[in-house]
């Protein structure tokens, strides 16, 4: 309330009226004139260097923004966005999800269990998943999240969980992260609220990125967040864009939103711990998923997917409509684990979730009768079916085949199918029709029995378990079980059959063909069905030219060169019609063979069948071969196959013998393959020239004003002629004209386009950078990817490119541990992570690792560590090492404190560059910060090269000059021989080399050193010893733990933990213990100087041999003198007098000294004056002498030498 009162009306700028005009005028005056023009000096280049720097900076920033362009592989209809709501407990996660769901769908959810998928808009679906406080869950969900809503209790501040989750995200690719502050209503003081918000925001920004969105949920109203705020949050979510993450875009994955146990209840009853078969459902994300691939379920393990199907979307996007909002019907909500949506569809079943009491009633009423009937029917029907089946397969090779038999057979297989599909969407109509007829012919019982076997049994037999007291039923059941055991076709086999049937459907192209075939010639359908590999079109042709073909097919065997792959096909055909082929086969062998070959080549859709076979048919035939009603085995000689299997392995394609390259027509048939041949219309030189003509033909000579016409003349003529024929119907004429105009217009447009293309080609090229080219290339590839399989229907498309992301898929996994089903907890995410081609194998991984700076301890080599790498979480034993300057990997005992180091582990092969994180334990939340280390995979190998240092120590036992004999380092001569030439060193640093082994003490050797050794020296040899990485790979099976204990997984303990738990304390090495330091008395030997040396030494340095004098004896000591008082007085007086005298003398001396100084000064002055005087006199003298000299010289130059 306070806030509302204080709020004042904001200033509103006028947009019209005199005031606004005035302002506009004022602004217009200043802005109209360009700043640049008004003040050119301000924009002039002041400094070229500064200019260059700014330019560089701008370019740097621009280039930094570039990402490597990736091909956009997002599907047209993307899967729902995974929104993971994370936060410590009691922060309001479930409430937020509930509010968001209510905001989008107007539905209330109770318990949020498992993923909840909703339609949020016309183009977007959302899947909400709540992440509990277990670190396993956090790790798993961080790998699949597209958007993370990170809830933070503002009244408390950040908690460790938040930072842990952020770190997990950083390692596994960074999804979009949005912070949401809750509990803001607990702040009473507005200022502290603002301050807290700011602090939290800045901390959040440093962790995520500057400017990351942080959302504030101010308070609760009736236990929910405020509608407007939730709505705003919803808007943010529904417009958010996501960056593709490397791991996610390169691996298919499914966040499972539904799980069904398909295990045979009988097996579960007999062995409750048996491995289960489950089907898991969810939207496929990431990339294409291949059928029968390998998946990893984090928390469970690796599994082979036994089957994948796609189902109709349970939560589809609305159809494209031009309206703004979704209507109520389209606001769908799908959360099977939370019990929303009573009806769920499977590929061949519908599950209806009924309230508990309802089910009970039904069970009690219906149970006994149905069971009795079922069991009776079951045995009968299967026998019947098997009899029928056996008949068929026995005679399948013969010509006299009854089409009805075939139909029966096929019908029998399809039986369960039709029965079970309730939903018309999942079923194909055509099959259904055949099927109903079948049903009428045969007894309706077979179908129901099969059905029971397949699926409905699941639910029913579970209930059976409750009623064990019913004797009759149990007896019957046992009997049936026994019978089933004796027969080879156990229920699982039947299930497989159903799957195969589905594959028939999947192979839709073939189906279509077949249907056409059937409509054309119904009589042949039986045969078509029979020949295992033979394709329908072949059959058709055989009809046309029966006799010839018969021969050909038998001939085919002889023409093996045609293609060994054809052998299968031809062989089966020849078997089938072998009777007819008599001796005619010798006629025109080659020609026929070639014809047959050509026929195969030409059969367009059959090529696919030839290569891959029809998946179903192949399987069927195999089954036929193998067993007959579960009783007999049919052994068929497979000569052709055997022959093929051991043929010469050669890639060369032997040429077709029918082509005779001496014939002219044969030569002509390839003439256009050469540049000298005829070109296509579009590339022909003549047409290209003509095009140019068209383009450039029309021009006006500007000088003369003459207009040159190109090719349009003809058309003008045509137009004119039409105008002449004006008398015709006007309407028609106008139509023609319109047509003509259109043609003209098109032509003009065409021309324009071409011109533009040329222009673009000329001018745009210079501007395009490498980056642009790359981007364009990627764009093209993306378009091609989209377009290539667009018009193929889903069933076929799935075979080519795998299951697309965005599809709702059902994955069947057999042999999953029973604990997965028994301890299933929907609060924990089940993820199916697809694995790449060799990611299922294990090997050595070399990684770069750094201890997390917030983790308090350093990590020890050979201590088990739990790693999250790829999809997996597993415990392993790492060895830490560091690379020396010479590339050697040296073992480290502990990880460095603040530095990267290498780590080698035994683990699953994961592509290089994948990030990982390590935790010491996933159980509980005792540790302060749980993430121990992070890093990246560098290298994969099948061996490791980590070494540790090993110092071998030896002792010299004989020393020559620089050569020593050393013992104790080795034990045998052989060992020494291996180390010959190795360098050794002493502790004092003298280097040496091993030379040769010595014979007598075994293991001793001769070595040379750079200096003489001492006997006390210790010699050592530095060597490197390879260490092996322990092969421990222990997947964290947290999902298999009982409900409520899933966060208590404990693997192998570290040595320290073990000792702690068992109370073992190591006895330390006594040498390592600390003791008080005791220093012994030092004792020095006397210095010994040789006599000769002593003699020559000067006396000063000679050792003084004389004994010291010792004490003077008493009698030699002089007594001390003690004075009389008078004497003392006299002495004092004398002392005083002498002091006075001394003083006087000193004073006189000083005076004398001063006087003398003065005298010296005066004397100096006089001396100076005297010197000066002398100098001047000398100067005068020299001048005179100089003058005289000059005179003399002058005179000597002038006249004759008078003096000489």
């Amino acid at each position: 309330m306070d806030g509302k009162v204080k709020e004042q009306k904001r200033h509103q700028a006028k947009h019209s009226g005199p005031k606004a005009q005035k302002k506009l005028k004022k602004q217009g005056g200043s802005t109209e004139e360009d700043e640049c023009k008004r003040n050119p000096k301000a924009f002039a280049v002041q400094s070229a260097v500064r200019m260059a720097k700014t330019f560089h900076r701008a370019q740097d920033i621009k280039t930094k923004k570039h990402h490597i362009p990736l091909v956009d592989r997002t599907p047209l209809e993307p899967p729902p966005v995974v929104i993971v709501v994370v936060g410590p407990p009691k922060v309001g996660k479930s409430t937020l999800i509930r509010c968001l769901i209510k905001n989008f769908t107007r539905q209330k959810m109770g318990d949020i269990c498992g993923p909840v998928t909703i339609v949020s808009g016309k183009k977007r679906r959302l899947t909400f998943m709540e992440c509990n406080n277990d670190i396993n869950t956090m790790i798993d969900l961080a790998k699949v999240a597209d958007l993370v809503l990170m809830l933070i209790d503002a009244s408390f501040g950040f908690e460790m969980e938040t930072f842990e989750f952020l770190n997990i995200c950083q390692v596994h690719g960074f999804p979009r992260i949005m912070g949401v502050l809750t509990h803001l209503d607990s702040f009473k003081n507005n200022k502290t609220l603002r301050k807290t918000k700011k602090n939290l925001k800045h901390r959040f920004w440093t962790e995520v990125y500057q400017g990351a969105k942080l959302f504030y949920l101010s308070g609760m109203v009736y236990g929910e967040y405020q509608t407007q705020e939730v709505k705003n949050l919803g808007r943010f979510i529904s417009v958010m864009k996501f960056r593709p993450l490397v791991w996610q875009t390169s691996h298919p994955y499914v966040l499972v939103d539904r799980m069904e146990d398909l295990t045979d209840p009988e097996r579960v009853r007999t062995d409750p711990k048996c491995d289960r078969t489950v089907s898991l459902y969810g939207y496929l994300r990431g990339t294409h998923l291949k059928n029968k691939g390998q998946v990893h379920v984090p928390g469970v393990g690796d599994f082979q997917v036994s089957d994948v199907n796609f189902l109709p979307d349970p939560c589809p996007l609305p159809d494209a409509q031009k309206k703004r909002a979704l209507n109520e019907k389209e606001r769908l909500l799908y959360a099977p684990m939370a019990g929303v949506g009573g009806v769920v569809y499977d590929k061949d079943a519908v599950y209806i979730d009924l309230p508990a009491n309802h089910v009970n009633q039904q069970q009690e009423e219906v149970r006994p009768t149905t069971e009795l009937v079922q069991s009776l029917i079951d045995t009968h029907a299967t026998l019947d079916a098997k009899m029928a089946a056996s008949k068929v397969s026995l005679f399948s090779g013969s010509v006299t085949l009854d089409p009805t038999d075939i139909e029966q057979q096929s019908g029998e297989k399809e039986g369960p199918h039709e029965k079970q599909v309730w939903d018309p969407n999942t079923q194909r109509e055509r099959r259904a029709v055949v099927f109903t007829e079948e049903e009428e012919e045969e007894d309706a019982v077979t179908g129901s029995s099969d059905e029971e076997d397949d699926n409905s049994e699941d639910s029913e037999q579970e209930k059976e378990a409750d009623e064990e007291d019913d004797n009759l039923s149990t007896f019957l059941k046992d009997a049936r079980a026994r019978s089933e055991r004796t027969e080879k076709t156990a229920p699982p086999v039947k299930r497989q059959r159903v799957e195969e049937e589905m594959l028939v459907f999947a192979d839709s192209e073939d189906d279509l063909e077949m249907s056409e075939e059937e409509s054309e010639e119904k009589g042949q359908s039986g045969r078509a069905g029979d020949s295992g590999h033979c394709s329908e079109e072949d059959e058709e042709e055989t009809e046309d030219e029966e006799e010839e073909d018969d021969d050909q097919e038998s001939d085919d065997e002889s023409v093996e060169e045609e293609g060994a792959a054809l052998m299968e096909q031809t062989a089966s055909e020849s078997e089938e019609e072998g009777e007819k082929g008599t001796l005619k086969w010798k006629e025109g062998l080659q020609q026929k063979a070639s014809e047959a070959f050509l026929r195969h080549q030409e059969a367009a859709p059959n090529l696919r069948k030839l290569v891959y076979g029809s998946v179903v048919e192949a399987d069927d035939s195999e089954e036929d071969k193998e067993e007959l009603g579960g009783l007999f085995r049919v052994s068929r000689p497979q000569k052709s196959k055997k022959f093929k299997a051991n043929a010469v392995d050669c890639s060369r394609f032997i040429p077709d013998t029918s082509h005779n390259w001496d014939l002219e027509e044969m030569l002509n048939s390839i003439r256009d393959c050469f540049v000298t041949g005829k070109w296509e219309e579009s590339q022909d030189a003549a047409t290209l020239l003509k095009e140019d003509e068209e383009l450039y033909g029309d021009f006006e000579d500007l000088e003369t004003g003459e207009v040159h016409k190109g090719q349009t003349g003809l058309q003008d003529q045509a137009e004119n002629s039409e105008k002449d024929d004006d008398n015709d119907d006007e309407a028609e004429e106008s139509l023609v004209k319109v047509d003509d105009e259109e043609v003209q217009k098109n032509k003009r447009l065409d021309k324009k386009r071409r011109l533009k293309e040329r222009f673009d080609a000329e001018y745009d090229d210079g501007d395009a950078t490498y980056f642009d080219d790359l981007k364009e290339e990627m764009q093209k590839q993306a378009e091609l990817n989209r377009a290539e399989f667009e018009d193929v229907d889903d069933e076929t498309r799935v075979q080519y490119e795998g299951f697309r992301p965005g599809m709702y898929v059902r994955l069947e996994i057999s042999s999953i541990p029973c604990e997965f089903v028994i301890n299933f907890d929907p609060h924990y995410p089940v993820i199916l992570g697809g694995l790449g081609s060799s990611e299922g194998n294990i090997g050595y991984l070399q990684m770069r690792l750094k201890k997390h700076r917030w983790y308090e301890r350093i990590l020890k080599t050979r201590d088990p560590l739990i790693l999250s790498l790829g999809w997996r979480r597993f415990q392993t034993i790492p060895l830490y090492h560091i690379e020396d300057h010479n590339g050697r990997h040296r073992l480290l005992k502990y990880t460095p404190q603040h530095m990267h180091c290498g780590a080698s582990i035994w683990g699953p092969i994961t592509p290089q560059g994948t990030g990982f994180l390590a935790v010491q334990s996933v159980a509980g939340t005792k540790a302060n910060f749980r993430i121990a280390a992070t890093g990246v995979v560098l290298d994969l190998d099948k061996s490791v090269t980590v070494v540790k240092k090993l110092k071998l120590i030896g002792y010299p036992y004989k020393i020559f000059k620089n050569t020593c004999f050393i013992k104790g380092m080795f034990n045998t001569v052989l060992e020494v021989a291996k180390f010959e030439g190795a360098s050794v060193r002493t502790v004092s640093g003298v280097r040496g080399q091993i030379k040769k082994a010595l014979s007598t003490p075994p293991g001793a050797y001769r070595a040379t050193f750079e200096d003489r050794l001492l006997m006390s020296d210790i010699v050592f040899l530095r060597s490197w010893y390879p260490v092996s990485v322990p092969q421990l790979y222990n997947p964290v099976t947290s999902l298999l733990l009982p409900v409520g204990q899933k966060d208590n997984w404990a693997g192998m303990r570290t040595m320290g933990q073990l000792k702690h738990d068992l109370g073992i304390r190591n006895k330390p090495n006594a040498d390592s213990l600390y003791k008080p330091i005791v220093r012994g008395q030092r004792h020095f030997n006397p210095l010994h100087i040789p006599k000769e040396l002593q003699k020559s030494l000067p006396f000063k340095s000679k050792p003084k041999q004389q004994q010291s004098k010792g004490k003077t004896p008493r009698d030699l000591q002089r007594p001390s003198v003690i004075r009389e008082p008078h004497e003392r007085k006299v002495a004092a007086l004398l002392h005083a007098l002498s002091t006075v005298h001394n003083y006087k003398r000193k004073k006189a001396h000083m005076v004398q000294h001063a006087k003398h100084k003065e005298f010296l000064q005066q004397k100096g002055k006089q001396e100076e004056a005297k010197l000066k005087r002398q100098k001047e006199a000398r100067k005068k003298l020299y001048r005179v002498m100089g003058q005289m000299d000059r005179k003399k010289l002058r005179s000597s130059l002038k006249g004759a030498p008078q003096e000489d």
Partner: protein
Amino acid sequence: MASQGLVYDGCNFFRQRLVLSTLSGKRVKIKNIRSKDDDPGLRDFEASFIRLLDKVTNGSRIEINQTGTVLFYQPGLLYGGSVEHDCNQQRSIGYYLEALLMLAPFMKTSLKATLRGVTNDPVDPTVDLLKSTALPVMKKFGIGGDGFELKVVKRGMAPGGGGEVVFTCPVCRTMRPVQLTDPGKIKRIRGVAYSVRVSPQMANRIVESARGVLNQFLPDIYIHTDHMKGANSGKSPGFGLTLVAETLNGFFLSAEMSSTPQGQGNPVLPEDLGRNCAKLLLEEIHRGGCVDSSNQSLALLLMTLGQQDVSKVLLGPLSPYTIEFLRHIRDFFQIMFKIEVQKPFEDERKGGDKVLMTCVGVGYSNINKTLK
């Protein structure tokens, strides 16, 4: 771990299976290897191939039973490096090299393989053929650059051998998706006529006769004669011809023929050999496509191992070897190709039907390469 292996019967397509197994990491078991034969089990050349595979990989496990009829192979990681191998002389080096070409780009360190043995024989694609066709195909997929070459150091004809080939290939992280749909017209024909330990005139005679056939189509024909002497000529006499047709778009179609090995079958005249080889080339051109028939499987493999994008390649009719290769690709990588037959138009004279193969790559990346 749960990756279960694949089981096959018979020794045919032996290389395919082992190569694909190595690339996909799936273990493979081959049973009934010539089990009904008088001389059962693996032959020497197959054993030699396994040995070569063992040399280029690290950590492979190979188990062969006593009679050699059952082989179990658990692939290791491709290591590469410098490899020397004495190939068995029952098959030519081409037999080994074909497999090595498929593996070479995915090694840990770049491969430098020195193979010794028979360089040319009539059974397998010869080294010259692979050099002139397989390498350009691989270059289209982004393999190449420095040190991608195949060098014939010494030539050794069929029974005696004594040839030597050096193959170097750099390491590649990912394959580029390709769209090779338009082969273009043939602009030139090149070739090598080689002869060892026979008269050098033989080569000239081959060239003469081959040109006689091909000149009807194209004037731009040049066939080198390659006569190796002394130490480089191997241990057996023989001669042969390799012809390569290059199209405007840079694709290569080739054909080859070698003389029958000494002491096996009838000797051939060089003239006949030249003429027949030229006809083989015409046959190859008739088949057409962007990749010639002996390299189909290589191209398809590289497409499969590409990024998760659509790749297309136009081929001639699929050879039986390729068909089996496609099946194996489906087994090992779960990849199916979309196969469309393209029929020539009425008035076109461009040989037989073509097959357009389309697939989406598995998104394979070289897991052996070390990250620095």
